């Protein structure tokens, strides 16, 4: 259960091929598994390990360092409310208080219907638009208590489905490098000469 699907394995191989060393694809592939399953499962980590020739422990070792990876079931929507200085100055703690009250759960937990997980978060690079929050890493700016309630209503009514994909999906589109244009990644040990445009320029001098 929850190994990558065939379609995602194909995508995984495309991603792996971009890197000079396979292990560099570790984080993108764990993201891919989180997109598929909503959180990071043990089976998915085993599968990622097979794909990049490392041990499952290495996958977990790296993945557990990063905050976006969640190892337990998570709401369809993850709401992160920023509490760092710029947002704190503009009422982030009041907003969090309100959010906990509205959702009826404490920060760090999920609503009983499994729809929304609420979290404290750190600086979201939108400091002039404080207080800010992110829903599945999509920003909302200058959020008032009324805005928050509206957001929750809209999420519950499915009104934002087009704009906000379920938790785990990072971008709605992905990079695809066309095979006929790609230079291709080489293992660094296999590269012995400088790039063509430098060698030729230096030889000409």
């Amino acid at each position, binding site marked *: 259960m929850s190994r990558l699907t065939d379609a995602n394995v194909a995508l995984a191989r495309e991603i792996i091929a971009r890197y*000079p*060393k396979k292990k*560099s694809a*570790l984080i993108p592939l*764990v993201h891919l598994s989180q997109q598929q399953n909503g959180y990071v499962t043990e089976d998915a980590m085993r599968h990622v390990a097979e794909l*990049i020739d490392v041990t499952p422990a290495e996958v977990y070792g*790296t*993945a557990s*360092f*990063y*905050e*976006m990876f969640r190892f337990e079931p998570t709401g369809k929507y993850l709401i*992160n409310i920023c*509490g*760092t*200085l710029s947002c*704190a*100055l*503009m*009422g982030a*703690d009041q907003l969090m*208080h309100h959010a906990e009250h509205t959702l009826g759960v404490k920060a760090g937990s999920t609503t009983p219907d499994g729809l929304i997980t609420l979290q404290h978060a*750190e*600086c*979201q*690079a*939108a*400091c*002039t*638009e*404080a207080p800010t929050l*992110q829903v*599945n*890493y*999509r*920003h909302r*700016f*200058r959020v008032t208590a009324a*805005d928050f309630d509206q957001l929750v209503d809209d999420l519950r009514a499915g009104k934002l489905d087009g704009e906000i994909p379920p938790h785990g999906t*990072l*971008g*709605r*589109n*992905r*990079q695809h*490098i066309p095979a006929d*244009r*790609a*230079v*291709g*990644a080489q293992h*660094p040990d296999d*590269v*012995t*000469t400088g*790039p063509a*445009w*430098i060698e030729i*320029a230096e030889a000409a*001098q």
Partner: protein
Amino acid sequence: MSAAPYPYAWAAGYYDDGDRPQVVTSRFQYDDSYTLDRYHATGGYEGLRKALGMQPAEVADEVKKSTLLGRGGAGFPAGVKWGFTPAGVWPRYLVVNGDESEPGTYKDRLLMELDPHQLIEGCLIASYAAGLSQCFLYVRGEMALAHERVAKALDDAYAAGYIGKNILDTNFSVDIVLHWGAGAYVVGEETALIESLEGERGMPRLKPPYFPAAIGLYGMPTIVNNVETLSNLPFIASNGSAAYTAIGTETSPGTRMIAVSGHVKRPGVYEIVNGSTTFRDLIYGDEFAQGIRDGNELKAFVPGGGSAPWFVADQLDIPFEGREASGAGSMLGSGAVMVMDDTTDIPAAALTLVKFYAHESCGKCVPCREGGTWLYRILERIVAGNGTDADLDTIRQVGESICPGDMPHAASERLGISAVPFPYKMTTICFVGPSAYVPVHSAMTLFPEEFDALVTKREPRSLIHVTAAPSGGQ
């Protein structure tokens, strides 16, 4: 959510009124600024064409002459850094630092969302000039829209022949790979960024070597540059270094993007003239943040991101020039000014930053891992009204173990203290450890009475607001 008070609904927080030169934000006015069509219509990829008509070394020389300073925090000249790659060691890589997460910093995300082609063109120019054969664009994981925009721009630029094999039918070939981060502030540190790109936990590497230019990704020479730094290159390549140095001052040429947040009337992101613009201009100027909200007084401001020692009104006339800022006891850092008015509870404000850095410690160095947590726990106790005099001493002792010797701080006429210049000494590998001490040190030095009151009164407080709730008008 609330109606956007800024001129371009799609460019949250960005203002370009006034008569300022635009080096990196010139396309933000268009609602389709991120498309290849708009980029072409506004001189896009002309800098690359020009560069490809020159020798790589000539392009590198032009960038050196521009004195383009790194915008990621350290302010190191980009052209000089490129020169640190050892001769004859191949391959060399470019890693783009799009991990923007320093508290208060908001510019790289805008550049990636609103003008991804400008960044891509910058990557191409850097790769051509410095002989970099593969480029990794590391975008902070929490920036979904930036991922979408950059991915689309890369696809379009590949299809148009700007990226990949034999770019514009020359012998210049480079791949640009979009890489996803996954949430960890310390990964912004360049050696941690490289570890993360290798699929490891994002922990900074021991120094020396001080620059990954010699030993970086997979042990190979690697240039790490910030998104804003690279976004300046198309302008420099198109117009020449002289046009660039004509803006700003000799030591700080060009422009910089600065985010002003907190208790100002018009928080925003502004592209300012480097070197000469002062903090007073930025906080009070009509074309900038327009003064303190609600007619309140300025209490303190953080001049260069959460890691920077704080300034007070005494430092308003300092310009955006590195040496002036360090002489006054702080740094310009990542271009983030956070403004606190006189309703701010200073210990509680400092706590948010100490908590941030304590939380973001990667755990590799003891003074940061243990010290940061201690600072956070003790300060939290003090802010909650449960601290004692001894706690203030402990904070200083823990701080001393992270930053031995004199700690930089600003001058204050009110307190009769003079400045201790930046930087500090440190016992840790990277700046996360010291950054946990900086805010509480600044707060205790510039506002000792607020700490004394808390430890003397010792009245437990339950819900502590960092500041009075903003009034209407926001």
